[in-house]
């Protein structure tokens, strides 16, 4: 397990427990009492650390290298997943995956950002930063879902849409804008889940839905804390301060009524028990999907447009 800087007390205790266990095995001495003591200490240390996470620490957890990504959740939650490739115009973007899958015997369209798990696959997935082709592939799959009346489920986890030269040439802005427009009026239920990072337009590009959920240790903002810090204070050093100012946690988002529900993660983050995280998420998605499937298409779309039309507070003179 990889530990983050603020998890140091937990790391130390975990290592000590492992060492004591090893001594117990090799030296044939009774260490059970010591282990019980240490494990109690570990529980307390975990509570101290995880119950008072700062906004920046949640950002760190959302980027934990062992955190599950879209394809993991798809394998865990659905059956018969068939990945579908390509935008039919330029290429197949590896940073966004999608395809048909069964949820309790019913077919749905699943789409999501995908990050890699080691250096090679991270590069292959472009660190979850999609090009216009990714957004256009997503839109193609959504129109396919519309044609055959399948609900759409989106998993969001991106540090942003890719800011590259070719991305601009092929219309990154147009691709995202088009998705916002088309997703607003897609006549099938759409459920979006932030499973990691929700950075700006790159996240929103597959983020318009009837229900927006966030896993507990994720964030959603118009800009990453690092970029915010570099714009406001001309250095990346103030990322903690920026994270606080941006109010980007699921708790903030729920309080602002910009999302519908926070999905609990296992203690310490999704990577401590990925299967449990997937099971909880599956339950939540099923619950909302049942609600949405009874609505007629017109009501569904007009409620979705209404939902986004009322976001944001302003004052009147």
């Amino acid at each position: 397990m990889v530990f983050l800087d603020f998890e140091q007390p937990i790391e130390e205790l975990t290592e000590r427990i492992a060492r004591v266990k090893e001594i117990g095995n090799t030296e044939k001495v009774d260490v059970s009492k010591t282990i019980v003591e240490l494990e109690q200490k570990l529980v307390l240390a975990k509570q101290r650390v995880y119950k008072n996470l700062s906004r920046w620490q949640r950002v760190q957890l959302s980027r934990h290298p062992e955190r599950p990504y879209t394809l993991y959740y798809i394998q865990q939650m659905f059956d018969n997943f068939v990945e579908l490739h390509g935008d039919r115009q330029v290429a197949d973007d590896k940073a966004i995956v999608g395809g048909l899958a069964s949820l309790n015997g019913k077919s749905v369209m699943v789409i999501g950002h995908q990050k890699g798990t080691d250096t090679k696959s991270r590069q292959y997935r472009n660190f979850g930063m999609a090009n216009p082709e990714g957004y256009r592939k997503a839109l193609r799959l959504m129109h396919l879902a519309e044609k055959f009346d399948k609900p759409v489920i989106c998993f969001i986890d991106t540090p942003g849409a890719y800011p590259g030269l070719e991305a601009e040439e092929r219309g990154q802005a147009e691709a995202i804008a088009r998705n916002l427009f088309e997703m607003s009026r897609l006549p099938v239920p759409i459920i979006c889940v932030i499973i990691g990072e929700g950075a700006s337009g790159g996240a929103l590009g597959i983020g318009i839905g009837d229900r927006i959920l966030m896993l507990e240790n994720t964030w959603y903002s118009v800009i990453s804390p690092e970029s915010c810090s570099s714009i406001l204070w001309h250095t990346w050093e103030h990322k903690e301060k920026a994270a606080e100012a941006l109010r980007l946690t699921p708790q903030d988002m729920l309080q602002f009524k910009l999302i519908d529900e926070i999905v609990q993660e296992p203690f310490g983050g999704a990577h401590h028990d990925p299967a449990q995280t997937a099971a909880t998420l599956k339950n939540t998605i099923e619950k909302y999907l049942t609600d949405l499937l009874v609505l007629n298409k017109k009501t569904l779309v007009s409620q979705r447009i209404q939902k986004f039309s009322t976001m944001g507070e302003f004052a009147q003179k």
Partner: protein
Amino acid sequence: MNWFRRVTQGIHTQMSERKEVPDGLWHRCSQCKTTTTTRAHKNNLWVCTNCDYHSRIGSEEYFEILFDKGTARKLFGNLIAKDTLDFTDSISYKKRLQQSQKKTGLDDAMQVAVGKLNGSELVVACMDFSFIGGSMGVVVGEKISRAIDHCLEHHLPLLIISKSGGARMMESAFSLMQMAKTSAKLTLLAEAKLPYISLMTDPTTGGVTASFAMLGDLNVAEPNALIGFAGPRVIKETIRRDLPDGFQTSEFLLEHGFLDKIIHRKQLKDQLGQLFAHFRQ
């Protein structure tokens, strides 16, 4: 030997007695540095008489250029931003709003007006770059939303003039959701088959480009405007090489198929009038 000797050093004239050329008599083109009188520059619709550079102008100027004299009526002037996040960087967002309001005389980065263009009524929503970089916060999103409602109610076409650095950071996720809000509302305009022309001017970047600005039935731009998703500096840092000449200009976008046409400011009124007329006839 000098004839005159300086008895006291420095300048002793009081600031209040200072004489200088009145402000705003001359205009110096920021591209070719040619100097003209402000009046000549204005008479040329704030376009350089020498190099054709289109100076950045605000909503008042665009309203003056586009609307038939005396027909424009402003809408939704009562909306002002709220600091929901209690955001503070070098100064608080509240203070920044007050300073910008005082400096520009505007309430926020967008004004909406209804009026006639060559005799036909339409709604124009125009951004102001002078107000916090033309950034899109809740007020800009709400004004577009209401402008669309007004179009739907009165069966009018819509023109949005974009000039913006993108979403307003000080409103975080709220400003992000304005991208969703404006795009969602535009689907209603599309359903009612009311035409929407998006005019992009220098600069149009970030969340504004990635939402309503790219969603026109027609996307048009002024010449040589910077239009893009990511800013040139960010792209340069990402790809670690120099950007080609003319990258992210209107001409670049036209070449890559993302604009219907480029319109010179002096032809703007007539050409927009002609385009809207095609949808009516």
